């Protein structure tokens, strides 16, 4: 009987463990809701000291979590970091406060490339924090040909060694770009053609992955993959054989942004924080630490030479000119979603 209880108890503990693994002061507080490890710790501490405030930093795993939480009432957050398309969605749903630029004089430091993006044309509600472009990373040990086009992923030589991002809009958008179309088309015939094209790539695909694509490329599981520029830089630092290119048809550009949700109780402090982060020296320190491209044009002299010379972090004007933001596709999202399910399950 005793042993039975032990077995029962262990069973209960195991079930709980398995299920779980899926998941003060009087100072003014700035409540930030952002991605994990999105800021340099020291830079945040310095802000707390300079302004005599406390920063409360909560994290979300994806834009949809962020949207759900903000829609449910904001939870008292003062500063959030939605991605480009999510800024557009949040503006449409009237969830963001307009920014008071008088409190953010440093905003003019942002490079023109990242000013007035299509998802928020006058920077009324948001400012770009960091950005990257989806291109092709490939291991020169195995890939001997010059890679210049998305069509190179279809090369039968790389069969079983291609890794794609596990992201519906990114990948269907890639096939659309390959065909010379907009990555955010709402023309169903164009989407169908792009998906049919992607189906012919499926036999070559080793895996779909977004979070661990870096490890898969570093370990040479895959030879060629669709990768964000910032991730490509990390891969190349760990495996010098890996090169990166923005294909000639152009790629999708994305950004995470600063925005203030409706109902923020410390709006002015949030604006002061954005301004502080855009200070050239602070900015250099911060981006050096997180390893993404610095949109702050005045920060260049404060960066290390190594950072300034990293071509995967600092994409050229010419490369950036070939990029396109993902636009909101409205009701067509359901069509994209069904096609994506179809593609991944290998069914009609």
């Amino acid at each position: 009987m005793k042993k039975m209880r032990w077995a029962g108890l262990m069973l209960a503990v195991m079930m709980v463990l398995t299920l779980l693994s899926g998941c003060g002061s009087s100072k003014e507080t700035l409540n930030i809701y952002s991605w994990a490890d999105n800021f340099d710790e020291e830079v945040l501490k310095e802000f707390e000291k300079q302004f005599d405030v406390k920063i409360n930093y909560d994290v979300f795993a994806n834009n949809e979590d962020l949207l759900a939480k903000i829609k449910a009432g904001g939870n008292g957050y003062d500063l959030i970091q939605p991605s480009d398309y999510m800024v557009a969605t949040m503006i449409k749903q009237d969830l963001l406060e307009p920014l008071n630029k008088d409190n953010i004089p440093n905003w003019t430091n942002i490079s023109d490339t990242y000013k007035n993006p299509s998802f928020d044309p006058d920077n009324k509600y948001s400012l770009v924090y960091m950005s990257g472009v989806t291109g092709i990373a490939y291991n020169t040990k195995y890939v001997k040909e010059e890679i210049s086009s998305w069509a190179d992923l279809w090369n039968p030589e790389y069969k079983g060694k291609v890794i794609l991002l596990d992201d519906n809009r990114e990948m269907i958008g890639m096939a659309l770009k390959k065909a010379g179309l907009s990555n955010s088309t709402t023309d169903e015939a164009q989407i169908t053609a792009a998906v049919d094209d992607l189906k012919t790539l499926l036999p070559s695909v080793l895996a779909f992955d977004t979070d661990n694509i870096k490890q898969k490329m570093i370990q040479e599981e895959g030879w060629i993959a669709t990768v964000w520029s910032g991730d490509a830089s990390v891969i190349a630092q760990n495996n010098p054989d890996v090169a990166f290119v923005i294909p000639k048809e152009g790629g999708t550009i994305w950004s995470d942004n600063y925005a203030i949700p409706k109902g923020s109780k410390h709006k002015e402090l949030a604006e002061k924080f954005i301004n502080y982060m855009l200070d050239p020296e602070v900015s250099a320190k911060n981006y050096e630490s997180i390893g993404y491209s610095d949109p702050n044009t005045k920060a260049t002299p404060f960066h290390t030479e190594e950072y300034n010379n990293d071509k995967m972090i600092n994409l050229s004007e010419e490369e950036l000119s070939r990029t396109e933001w993902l636009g909101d596709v409205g009701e067509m999202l359901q069509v994209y979603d069904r096609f994506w399910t179809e593609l991944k399950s290998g069914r009609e």
Partner: protein
Amino acid sequence: MKKSNLSVLPVILWLCLFLVVPMLIVVGISFMGRDDLGNVVLDFNLESYSRFFDPLYLGIYWDTIVLSVLTTGLCLLLSYPLAYYIANAGPKMQTWGLVLITIPFWINFLIRTYAWVLLLRTQGVVNNVLLDFGLIQEPLQMLYTKGAVLLGMVYTFIPFMVLPLYVALDQMDKKLLEAASDLGASRWKSFWHITLPQTKSGIMTGSVLVYVSTTGMFVVTDILGGSKSSMISNIIQSQFLGARNWPFGSALSVIFVITSLIMIALFNRALTSKHMKTKEGR
């Protein structure tokens, strides 16, 4: 009588608040509509349910059921001899056996799954050993295949099968076996007519635990399967997040719960009737 009624009140309250009410909300949303921003709107319709009959989603559900049944079957086949051995070993060995089976659960499930990646990948332990011994010339592609998913599932859920089987085997009346052997039954015959029917409850509990857990699992398909095959739970997750279609996700969840209950009922009946037959045959 009254006292015992009162003492179960907290449990009933807990279940109502955190199981019944959320379930009812899910059922409610499954009949509603959505606007083009993904907000759930009050508009009674059956569209989400009719969408399930799209061959695409039916096919994915079929795949999920096949994988879950395979996992359950394999777990049962592998666990029964082990549970049998532990239950019939000396008291010290029994304790050790149980401890060894539960030890892996002290390590986070995700870490154990990633450990399989280290073993199976092209530059992984298994491939390196095989290459070093000259058994293969080229690394084998073991990771990101259906086989890897099945392996990961069976590995994850085997303890869920072993423990209930052990309990059943430990509890069974061993005198019956002695009687059978006294009456000249072969070992195989007494296993088939005595041990197996007597451990029916263990088989049932273990199978339900493994089956239900497998159908609801999507991490293994993502990590070991390279996200190439979708399980129904992958689809449900994507409806709530990326696709922003809560009504469809809710409808899938409701269908999922109902079909799981049906499967369990069918399994229960199959086991019971088999037992009945043996009784009648006596």
